[in-house]
């Protein structure tokens, strides 16, 4: 190809890419640079803004911040593991067990809750779980409980809400990865003398690993970055790190501290994912595919 014709063949590509690149640059990259710059500015005693890493040090100095982060991260990991434990059998049932003509129907059922916004889903849960809610009503009516009990506003309710919100993002990658698993591999393992447990451990899970990893990354990040569910369902004990960032920006007017927290969230969660990938021996390129 001559340089001229090569340039010509690239032109349509450039035309199509320009809006996306502009979008990325103007709305994502530039504001991030600005936030990054802001996160290194602090107000000194005379009220002037100076360069400093204090906003970052503050995170480690003040136990409430890193404890909240640790709590958030640990809960996000728990949510990820629980979501995986529930989603895996569901995905396996849909791809390998259910009659083929029901597959689409089941996938649709999974998708249904996501036709309404997260807020509506959470209010749905709240109507079910609250002390004067549907579940309590039936438990009392059937004589199982003497008094209605508060099922909302605790960590278990919050985790349940997060798992529910995350399900789809785990099931979809699992569906595609399990769909690509040749049934004969399972039969072959069975034929060679394995029992169900060994088949799951040595054939199905290794095959599904890229899907497990990508689903887990998405669920972990979504849970870590969630704001509504911990706040509304977790109630009074549910300080989530995102809320901490919100409070810095909105309640304390401290944008510099808030930006620093935002970047810490980005860096530490990336680190956690990196460690997770290393521990399970996965490559990011394969997982993203």
């Amino acid at each position, binding site marked *: 190809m001559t340089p001229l014709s090569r340039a010509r063949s690239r032109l349509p590509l450039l035309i199509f890419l320009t809006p996306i690149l502009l979008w990325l640059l103007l709305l994502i990259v530039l504001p991030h640079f600005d936030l990054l710059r802001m996160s290194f500015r602090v107000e000194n005693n005379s009220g002037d803004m100076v360069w400093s890493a204090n906003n970052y040090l503050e995170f480690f100095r003040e136990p409430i911040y890193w404890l909240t982060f640790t709590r958030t991260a640990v809960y996000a990991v728990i949510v990820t593991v629980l979501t995986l434990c529930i989603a895996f059998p569901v995905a396996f049932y849909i791809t390998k067990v259910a009659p083929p003509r029901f597959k689409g129907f089941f996938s649709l059922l999974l998708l249904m809750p996501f036709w309404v916004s997260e807020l509506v889903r959470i209010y749905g849960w709240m109507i079910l779980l609250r002390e004067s809610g549907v579940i309590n009503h039936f438990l009392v009516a059937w004589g199982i409980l003497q008094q209605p009990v508060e099922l909302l506003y605790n960590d278990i309710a919050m985790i349940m809400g997060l798992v529910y919100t995350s399900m789809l993002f785990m099931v979809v990658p699992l569906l595609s990865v399990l769909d690509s698993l040749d049934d004969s591999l399972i039969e072959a393992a069975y*034929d060679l003398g394995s029992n169900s447990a060994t088949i799951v451990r040595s054939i199905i899970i290794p095959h599904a690993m890229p899907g497990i990893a990508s689903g887990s990354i998405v669920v972990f990040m979504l849970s870590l970055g969630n704001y509504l569910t911990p706040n509304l369902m977790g109630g009074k004990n549910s300080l989530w790190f995102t809320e901490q960032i919100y409070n810095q920006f909105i309640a304390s007017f401290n944008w510099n501290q808030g930006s620093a927290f935002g970047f810490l969230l980005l860096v530490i969660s990336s680190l956690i994912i990196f460690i997770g990938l290393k521990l399970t021996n996965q490559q990011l390129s394969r997982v993203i595919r």
Partner: protein
Amino acid sequence: MDVDLSVEKLSKHFKEFTAVDNVSFDVERGNFFSILGPSGCGKTTLLRMIAGFEEPSEGTIRIRGRDMASVAPNRRPVNLIFQHLALFPMMNVAENIGFGLARRNESKAEINKKVGDILERVNLPGFESKKIHQLSGGQMQRVAIARSLVLDPTVLLLDEPLGALDLKLREQMKIELKRLQEQVGTTFVYITHDQSEALVMSDYVAVMNEGKFEQIDTPQKLYARPTSPFVARFVGNNNRLLGKVMKSSGGLTELATPNGDKIRAATQLNVTPGSRAELFIRPESIIIEPGELPDLNRLQVVVGSVLFDGANSQLLARSGDADEELLISLPQNRQFDHIRAGDHIEIGWDVSAGNCFVMS
């Protein structure tokens, strides 16, 4: 001889469809037994019932006399080579082959030794740490066989494992598989739709059609003396001539073809004159320019085309205005190189060479 596999009155019904219909057969120890049939004839279902992946609707399967009815696939002394081999891509060669051994809780050292031995046996020494995707088609084939053979199964089931290979490799693997089977002495049950694979490798071949066995025989007999028109047509090339029975006596039946040729054929029983019959005659049984040989059916034909294919060269010729052309093998001494399309030639075949069936 001991019987390794005994199948008795086995049937499998699906909704409104019978895949396997009352099949019975025995396979003796050390035999290479093939089940040959077109796709959809039920042979895969039959094999999967033996392996334990399908539940028979009726009938029994016995392996060395033991009823397999309530035995799960992972407990049966049989192993299956899958059509697409089903090697585990997440494991290397040694892990694949050692997989079944590890399930039997054999020691690491034991497994390593057995894996090394079996790789030697299938001509892949030192391949232990290779990844599956690094192997060629033929090597994968051998790993798959090794993975099953290392477990020393009573019966090894093979589900068209050569189907995915290209022609040259398939020819080579046929010979290799046959040799391997002779060496290890394991009983093989092999299913295929390729008659050449079945004929080359097998001690016995069962021809299957629409869920039923048409004939179980040695390859030679299957080829020379098919017992049904289906077998005659399905195994090897055959010319089919239709005719009306004129007379039949003393094991010799005379037919008249629609375009007026008179043909004699050897039959076991006498046939009622007037009934319709079909005669199958192999291309290589037909003699070109037979001269003065006795007891021949003779036809005058016009050559339609010459199909040169080296040792397998053939002629297509037609008698008068007959519907179908006859396929005639050319002898390899090239004595008929002069024949061209449009030539008039005489052909003939021995009256005992064809197989005649009465049509109902």
